[in-house]
């Protein structure tokens, strides 16, 4: 039993994170043409509206919720000191979870039922969406069945995750958790593991820099200030405005 636990809560996380980092960096640097959100809106737009909007707003907010709970658990605990605020947090998180769940069911249904979308569906899309579906389902189950997650996450899960990142894995508390919660953790790392092999890489390149770059973009193949200066020695450098 210990062996299995060690595998799932120590080995798997490390494998997942290593594969994630190396895989995404390699893909970003070397397989650029294949790096895309692979939008299928052009082929089908009505069903995508209900699928993509519900799913993304739900999952993105849930994602950041997990991130905050992991990075600054104290903030959540502080917030949760008053029961009312705890309820607000839990209920809104649950709502976003439901949104993501319904959205994903729509997306998966669209992928499988529309002939056009099937043409642009590969096996990794299906694997990913099924894994995500399981993961969100488990998450909702945990939230409903083992209250109040937002509080015990900060006490149990955050230290565990931190211990992984400091290379001193402390897994005893995790071993004690109910099976559903353990499954939720395992599926989470599985999803991280397969990110480089799926379209999920698209959320790593969220175009935030668009907000501060100037609207127009001009690229010179040659350094227009340098070309005419025949006196200067030839230096190996790329034009700056490139």
């Amino acid at each position, binding site marked *: 039993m210990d062996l299995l636990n060690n595998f799932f809560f120590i080995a798997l996380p490390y494998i997942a994170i290593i594969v994630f980092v190396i895989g995404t960096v390699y893909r970003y640097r070397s397989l650029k*043409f*294949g790096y895309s959100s692979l939008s299928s809106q052009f082929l089908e*737009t009505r069903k995508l509206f209900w699928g993509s909007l519900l799913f993304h707003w739900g999952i993105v907010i849930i994602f950041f919720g997990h991130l905050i709970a992991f990075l600054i658990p104290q903030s959540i605990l502080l917030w949760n000191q008053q029961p009312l605020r705890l309820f607000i947090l839990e209920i809104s998180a649950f709502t976003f979870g439901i949104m993501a769940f319904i959205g994903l069911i729509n997306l998966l249904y669209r992928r499988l039922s529309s002939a056009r979308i099937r043409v642009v569906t590969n096996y990794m899309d299906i694997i990913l969406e099924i894994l995500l579906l399981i993961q969100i389902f488990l998450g909702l189950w945990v939230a409903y069945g083992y209250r109040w997650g937002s509080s015990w996450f900060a006490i149990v899960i955050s230290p565990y995750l931190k211990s992984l990142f400091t290379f001193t894995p402390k897994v005893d508390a995790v071993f004690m958790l109910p099976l559903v919660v353990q499954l939720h953790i395992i599926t989470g790392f599985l999803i991280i593991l397969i990110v480089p092999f799926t*379209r999920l890489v698209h959320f790593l390149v969220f*175009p935030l820099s*668009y*907000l501060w770059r100037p609207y*127009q973009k001009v690229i*010179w*193949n040659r350094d227009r200030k340098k070309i005419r200066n025949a006196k200067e020695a030839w230096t190996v450098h790329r034009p700056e405005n490139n």
Partner: protein
Amino acid sequence: MDVRSQVAMLFHLDKCIGCHTCSIACKNIWTDRKGAEYMWWNNVETKPGTGFPTKWEDQNIYKGGWKKSDDQKLSLRGSGKYKGLLNIFHNPYMPSLEDYYEPWTYKYLDLIESPKGNDQPTARPVSLITGKPIDIKSGPNWDDDLSGTPEFARRDPNLEHLSPSEKEAMFQLEKMAMFYLPRICNHCLNPACVASCPSGAIYKRGEDGVVLINQQVCRAWRMCVTACPYKKSYYNWSTGKSEKCILCYPRLEAGLAPACMHSCVGRIRYLGVLLYDADRIQEAASAPEDELIDRQLELILDPFDENVIQKAKDNGIADSTIQAAQTSPVYKFVKEWGLGLPLHAEYRTLPMLFYIPSLLPVMATLSDADNSAQSGKLDPIAKFWNKNTLYDTSTNSLWGTIEQSRFPLKYLANMFGAGNESKIKEVLKKQLAVRVHRRNVTVGDINSEFSQKALSDVGLTSKMADDIFYLTSLAKFDDRFNIPPAHREQAIEMLENTGDAKGSSGFGFKESPTRGL
């Protein structure tokens, strides 16, 4: 003054015969691939008509281009930093396949391999996307030559602001007229596609102003499809990348004309360098609507001006480019003669493709036949509609023919004048004056006083008129295309070691350009 050079285009609509050779040349070279079947980087539309994609000019639907807000600032109509990022999960203004058409082929083999039977075998159409049999609902040039039909012509967005009677007059059987509108990417000075791209994949090349999409940076956020008011950025559904006209830049760099221009049967296309002042782009793009065209033309600099030449050289523009700007046919048409107008300047992207609006359907009027000596000299077919009606292309009532045209000027103004009729009138008058002048020279039945007056009325000299005539009607290949090849001797300054790309395929992909996981 920040002098830059732009490879600009001019299309002479009076010469377009609507043969679609340009479209085919382009398709065969660039878009005969999976995912690109439906794309027409170059297409030719019948006007009045709905165009491709359907009703692309209706920005209430597609939200393309720039709009000026109350504080006089420009913003993208349907995308941009905030709207774009908020709509990134689902873009509500993006045209979908239905707005273009579902590409298809036929199962030709069935014609040969069907078993013997009582019916003649047929080749069924099958979708090029799903491979399944489809009912064809529309296709490329679906409205070709269908001007006058309620389905297409009457839904033309340019008919807006025309009175009902004007519209009716356009569609009367005997008065119906149409012309062709060939379109490619305008390689704008203030491109909305570039501005809308969240990942910064789209850029304008400094050297020649060609607007390109970096296929390795595009992430299919698909905002450019919305932002381009001309709908000339297309989404490749197979690779998950957007694509657009590249002005055949590999050909341009070698000094060759782009495929669509080279193959143009009517020889309507001209290509040449323009020098412009990049510092004033924003100012010109945010001008009041009735000044837009003038301000855009003011950006284009005189390539003979010493100061301009010096500033161009300071900016690294090669001598050959400056020379090309001095002999540019586009400069002549657009600046010297004032004949070229941008399409839909009101989108504020400052397009660098100019059009000379059609004169023919405007110029001819139907009136009661008269028997003057002059009409006796005309070719009888050209002259008489029927016994009592004259199909009048004669010139006695000089500008009157333009005023009572078969096409309301308003219609042309909505396309080429940002709604401003006087712009159109000016160009049509000039064209008419050149005809009068040439008729005086060749046929001689118009007295020279009359033709001189026609010319001076519109500010042309007979020398200019002859030049316009030459470049319009007789120009040879090298007159129409004046392209300075890229300077390969400077390639060393690009400092991309050729060895780096050795072993990679033609356009530098080390991976094959196929859809990712």
